[in-house]
């Protein structure tokens, strides 16, 4: 190729790339650098703009200091992390959905009985809806009909319909989805509460008919279950410690997954925050002493952080479970009194305590059928069938097939999904807060991204908002580094 022709080709290539490069420079790189600079200034949109020629003042770390001493910042950071507690469940949900969809295609030969059942459900639901006179049950009928139609379509198409339906949330524009969910969560007319209310009425009646001792049965069961989980986790940590599979930092992370819920539950039970911290700290010190003073026949682990990734991942799943059990323990004894007045479905978005979980549930719905599911589907299709055949020949159960073949083979996909989910989780919450709750009630759904919007565009403090944005970047970066350092991104042999 002549020099002239080569130059010409380079020129054409650059021309093709130019729009993208210009877009990147204009809308990403330059604003990024500017916002970094702005975070060290007192840039206020009201004083520093095209109509006001006031000079910008370099404020050093003032914005950051103010941020870390701003009580609302910690609340909003807490909200952001709270919303992220749903991530392990959304990842597990995506994997579950992908596994189901992979298996769904194998059901196509059982078309006749499934279609028969679906047709019967549809006819009954349809006729009842047509006849009317059962407004309270209409939601159930509607859902029954929808389920039957989905089942029928699924068995006819061998799972293609399911894949499409599961992926639907990803097609829908965010704001439209949030408006829809706002309607679903309506405490009076939303289908969620319309479906829940009759069930809760029945539950109230059932609780009322139970002997008084029942009030303590639920908390008792929750306590037993929590103790079983705590015992299991301690045993795990002990074994990991004995086999030198967990270093000191990993052990601490494992213990925190038990003690953070303990601390919160104690405060829910009425203990002062400081007393709860003291009790949790004493338990922590005692357990750590017990674990660290055990003999280690295999020698000490090479690194103090050995096994940290696994412990953190497990902690993220354990904490919500233990908190749910803790909430049951607290709420249980009040059940009879509540049931006598009639337990109603919650005011999802209007109640301080329910607003965050409500948004988490919605996030879970959106995340299960998202790109994560597609990535898992692709990952599953890449697993060599020979591995399963070998496992079958060895007589492996389906659980063993999943745990020893599927899960390790999906490690790189899970790693990628975890990284992306954490990044999206930290950056998320803006659209939901803006559309559904305006960050309320009482700031309970304000995340860091919404806080940036408020400070930047409602208060006008662009310098301060930039500082928040860069702190958020630091968090994203730090957690991504952590994921890279401790996450399992290699297929186990």
């Amino acid at each position, binding site marked *: 190729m002549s020099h002239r022709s080569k130059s010409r080709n380079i020129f054409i290539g650059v*021309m093709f790339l130019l729009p993208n490069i210009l877009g990147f420079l204009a809308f990403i790189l330059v604003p990024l650098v500017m916002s970094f600079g702005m975070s060290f200034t007192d840039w206020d949109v009201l004083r520093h703009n095209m109509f006001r020629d006031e000079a910008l003042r370099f404020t050093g770390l003032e914005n950051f200091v103010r941020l870390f001493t701003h009580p609302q910042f910690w609340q909003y950071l807490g909200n952001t992390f709270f919303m992220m507690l749903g991530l392990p469940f959304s990842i597990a949900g995506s994997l579950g959905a992908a596994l189901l969809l992979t298996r769904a295609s194998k059901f196509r030969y059982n078309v006749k009985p499934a279609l028969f059942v679906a047709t019967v459900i549809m006819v009954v639901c349809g006729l009842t809806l047509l006849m009317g006179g059962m407004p309270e049950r209409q939601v159930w009928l509607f859902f029954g009909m929808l389920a039957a139609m989905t089942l029928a379509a699924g068995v006819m198409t061998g799972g293609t319909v399911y894949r499409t339906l599961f992926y639907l949330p990803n097609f829908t524009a965010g704001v439209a989805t949030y408006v829809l969910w706002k309607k679903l969560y309506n405490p009076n007319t939303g289908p969620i509460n319309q479906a829940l209310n009759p069930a809760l009425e029945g539950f109230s009646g059932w609780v009322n008919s139970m002997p008084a001792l029942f009030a303590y049965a639920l908390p008792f069961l929750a306590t037993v279950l929590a103790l079983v989980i705590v015992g299991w986790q301690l045993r795990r940590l002990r074994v990991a410690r004995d086999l030198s599979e967990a270093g000191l930092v990993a052990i601490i992370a494992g213990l925190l997954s038990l003690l953070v819920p303990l601390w919160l539950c104690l405060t829910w039970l009425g203990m002062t925050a400081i007393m709860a911290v003291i009790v949790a700290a004493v338990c922590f010190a005692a357990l750590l002493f017990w674990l660290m003073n055990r003999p280690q026949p295999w020698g000490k682990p090479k690194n103090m952080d050995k096994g940290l990734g696994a412990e953190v991942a497990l902690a993220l799943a354990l904490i919500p479970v233990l908190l749910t059990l803790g909430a049951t323990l607290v709420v249980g004894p009040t059940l009879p009194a509540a049931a006598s007045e009639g337990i109603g479905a919650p005011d999802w978005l209007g109640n301080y305590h329910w607003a965050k979980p409500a948004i988490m549930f919605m996030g879970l719905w959106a995340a299960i059928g998202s790109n994560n599911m597609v990535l898992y589907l692709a990952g599953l299709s890449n697993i060599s069938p020979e591995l399963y055949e070998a496992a079958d020949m060895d007589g492996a159960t389906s659980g063993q097939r999943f745990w020893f073949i599927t899960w390790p083979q999906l490690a790189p996909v899970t790693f990628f999904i975890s990284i992306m989910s954490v990044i999206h989780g930290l950056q998320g919450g803006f659209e939901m807060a803006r559309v559904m709750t305006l960050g309320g009630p009482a700031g309970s759904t304000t995340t860091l991204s919404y806080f940036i919007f408020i400070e930047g565009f409602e208060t*006008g403090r662009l310098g301060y908002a930039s500082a928040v944005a860069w702190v958020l970047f630091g968090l994203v970066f730090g957690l991504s580094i952590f994921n890279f350092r401790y996450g399992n991104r290699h297929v186990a042999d």
Partner: protein
Amino acid sequence: MKSVFLGITLALVVASSMLYWTAPDRASPIPVLYWITQDDEVKQETIILFKEWLAENNLPPVDVKIDNTNQGLTKKLTQGLAGVGSDILDVYGINIGIFAASGMLMDVTEKAQELGFGPDKTYAALRSDLVYGGKQYGFPRNAAASMVWINQDTFARYGIEEPPHRWTWDEFEELGRKFVAAANPPGTRDRVYFMKPSLSMMSMVELRRGMGLSTFNETMTECHLDDPRTVEVMRRMYRWVVELQLIPTIADQNAMTADTPIAGGATFHLFSTGRYALLNLPRWALIRLRRYGKLPLRVVEPPHTGFPNAQFGCGIIGAYTNTRYPEETAQFMQFLTSDKFNLLIARSGDSLPPVPKYTQSEEFLRPPDHPEEWQAGEVFSRAAPEIGIPICRPPFVLANVYSRIESQVQQSLLAGRLTPEEAAKTLEERINKEIEISINEDAKKRKLHDELKLVQEKIDQLKAANRPIPREWIKNPFYLHYYEAKGLLTEEGAG
């Protein structure tokens, strides 16, 4: 591929050029003013009347186009500060400070004097809404005082007596208790509430003012809400919203709005069907209420706790600093003082006409097609200027910022996260923190703050000695009214 790429580029260039050259202001031979406002019948008629008024006054013709898609505060601000703001902007009370401070509103002080739309043309109480830092930034399109609307049918349905013209918060609570008990027998599914507050949440400002307390001190240098009166107001609020459920929470309001079969204006549908017994809104409510036929309406003053007061504010028309048509936008503001415009406001059921004398017109007091509104017209014309007080606009913290803090603290109180005492303390601390940040960032504000603090010290000394305070020392609109009513003001100079 290269040809496709070039073809697309060319097509985009051609399309962009066509769009640019066919834009209304390019295609029109006369100036086109863009007006960011709600697109409704009153605004459409305003434009028609403006064109007629221009012709009658032998002024060159101008076209006005409504832009109703960019009404949000952040949109207006972002566009304006990016240099592409609309020529005419609707700016509402709470946000005037932010627009004026940013410099994107044109200073019309001289033009107003020249064309006769200065602050003296409107209500004296509203002058602080037009003038910011000694400069005039617009003229009111209307003036709004919140009064209490009564649907007489609703009270008759449950056999409950209607509120009197002037009533106290104790009477409000007593009547409210009776009403919700009668309207919500056991087993009621859709709760009937006693009152729908004016904003998203009941304004605590009116309650505090009723007890002689404002959010800020006399010079507006400091928030002083950590006060037993604030605690009392918080207690009442909690009782009315959570315990007695006389007033819906924000979530209840949203849920009820979603229940209504009509999009927009759900509040009026709920009021007309009796789900709310009372509405706390300005006169513009008539525009919506007229759609429900001839409702038997009555209007009374908002309840008070010793000092009758109502929130009084205005939506101003401001001009964008970078407008290409400063003369024409000024003419539009001048038009707002005309007969044509003021009578349009009076007969359309909008809030009070910007020029006070028109509240005495037949169109305002006794619209011939709506005899059921005559009592309302009479109350608005008399009570609004008498007890209406605008919101505080301290130069050290934006009204939208302190209102947001107040709303958050209210929500925390109602969610049981804060006790009334903690709420009062938190409110004061957070607002004062904002003031501190603001004066630390801006040397001019710091200087002004220091000066006013010295004045405040003198005021405090006079108050302690129970002596009258020079009027010109007081910057807080509430204390001006309050001390005036209590005879605590003196016209003597500051010395």
